[in-house]
């Protein structure tokens, strides 16, 4: 089984490595970091904070968008171009194919997140911004978020077109990012239907806000977020939440894929 997952994963990695857009996104992320440094220069006291925030936000935003892009296309194009014919007629289970594709995406996205982070750290060091373990934790959290978002995209692409999957995945990504607002709405909204809808949504949406600990999103405690406020225990708990969603979404994707006609 591992051999087959590895074969599919590796092939997916090679396929993705040929997508030029990814190199464009990498350039873009470096650009965002440079911009952050320029903006930081202007706000004298906040220089370090702005540079770090923008860098981390870049990793999580562009990483997630890339995850959606890869997730909605890589599985779909196998069916669309019928390259899947020569694969699933070999002794491989369909779920192994889906999981193998996902693992390939994990590989690609991990390399990208590593490159994004390396670029960010290099620029921060060059600017003389102090680095702490908090940055490492933030990067790990962003990485978990990106992998969760990839699973969301794969789930939708198991049964719909790249366009629709992309819309659905983006919507879930956006909702998952504003869970604190939803939670507030669920408990304090005037209209009862808003409360019902909000609490129902919270049940079916991965809480991506857990992964975003940059200063902007945790208002008022910006300083502590960049300090040692976030423990490794918190990081592990958030990663566990992500892992739960990844597993659930992949199981659903496999169940759907199992029943599909490849015509």
């Amino acid at each position: 089984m591992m051999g087959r997952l590895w074969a599919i994963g590796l092939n997916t990695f090679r396929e993705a490595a040929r997508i030029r857009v990814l190199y464009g996104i990498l350039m873009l992320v470096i650009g965002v970091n440079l911009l952050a440094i320029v903006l930081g220069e202007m706000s004298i006291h906040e220089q370090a904070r702005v540079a770090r925030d923008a860098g981390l936000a870049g990793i999580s935003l562009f990483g997630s968008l890339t995850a959606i892009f890869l997730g909605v296309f890589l599985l779909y194009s196998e069916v669309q171009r019928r390259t899947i014919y020569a694969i699933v007629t070999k002794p491989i289970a369909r779920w192994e194919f889906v999981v193998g594709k996902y693992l390939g995406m994990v590989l690609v996205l991990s390399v990208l997140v590593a490159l994004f982070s390396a670029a960010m750290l290099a620029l921060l060091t060059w600017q003389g911004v102090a680095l702490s373990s908090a940055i490492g934790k933030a990067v790990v959290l962003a990485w978990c978020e990106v992998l969760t978002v990839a699973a969301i995209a794969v789930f939708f692409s198991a049964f719909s077109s790249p366009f629709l999957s992309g819309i659905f995945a983006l919507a879930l990504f956006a909702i998952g990012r504003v869970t604190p607002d939803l939670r507030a709405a669920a408990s304090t909204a005037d209209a009862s239907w808003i409360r019902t809808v909000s609490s129902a949504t919270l049940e079916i949406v991965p809480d991506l806000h857990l992964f975003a600990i940059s200063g902007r999103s945790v208002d008022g405690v910006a300083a502590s977020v960049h300090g040692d406020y976030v423990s490794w225990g918190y990081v592990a708990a958030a990663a566990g939440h992500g892992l739960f969603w990844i597993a659930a979404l992949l199981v659903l994707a496999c169940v759907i894929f199992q029943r599909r006609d490849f015509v």
Partner: protein
Amino acid sequence: MTTDVVIRATDLAKTYRTPFRRKKVEALRGVSFEVRKGEVFGFLGPNGAGKTTTIRCLMSLCAITGGSASILGQPVPSRAARQRLGFLPEQPYFYDYLTVNELLDLGGRLFGIAAAERRRRADTLIERVGLGNARGQSLKKFSKGMLQRAGLAMALINDPDLVVLDEPMSGLDPVGRKEVRDLILELRDAGKTVFFSSHILSDVEQISDRVAIVVGGKIEDVGRPRDLVGRAPLGTEVVLAIVDDADGAKDATAAIAARAEKVRATPGELLAVIGPGADVDDFLVFAHRHGAKIISVMPRYETLEDLFLRRVAASHRGSAPEAVPP
């Protein structure tokens, strides 16, 4: 249950449903046949007959909506059966960023073949399908015929007992077609069972031990080609030479034509077809007396082509698989 049956389709039915549009296409309407161990089985039918659909169902690429099928003794879908199966899709398309070596390596990995053995098999197969000069190229640069060859190699990477080929000769030039035919016969000689589809009659007729004719999602005939066609002669074809400028050549031609069922005249020659009941000797003596020289006499039997065309024509009069209202 005989273990000699490698593919068994029983009343196979497949209805394609297009989601949202609520359109249904009955592509297969009760397809039954058996493929026996060690034979080359030709699956013949016009375009749209349901050949690819049948193969998709057998390969468990799509769900069967009626009837049942088994492959290598296992009900479809079966992973154990796929271990011993090779499959070439119609108009195959592979990851175009790989070389043929890398494609075969991927295939070998999925069968759990060890690395050294994968390399050995890939090398042998690449030579065998004539892609030795294209090893370094990515599949993107392959022509249709080269992709077909790469697909054949991919289908054989596990040294399968059963090989299923969907239109393996399509898109190939005459030399390529011959090579594929030879390859199929080689596979049979090596004890493998080959099931292949085609809409080209001559390809099927030349190499199949048994054939099935499928038209409009139904099997019309299954059997050995010579058992399918009638044994009674359809008539006799006589070719005569008639000296053009001789006196009365016109009259002679007319007289002979009157005795034949059908004639076709070319300058200096006359092809006459006489019916199965007519006395051939009598006709020849008559023609000779009218100054014609006999060039050849050939009894004509029904060919697989006659049968095929008859089946297709009959289905056009009847109902083809059209979209039926939901």
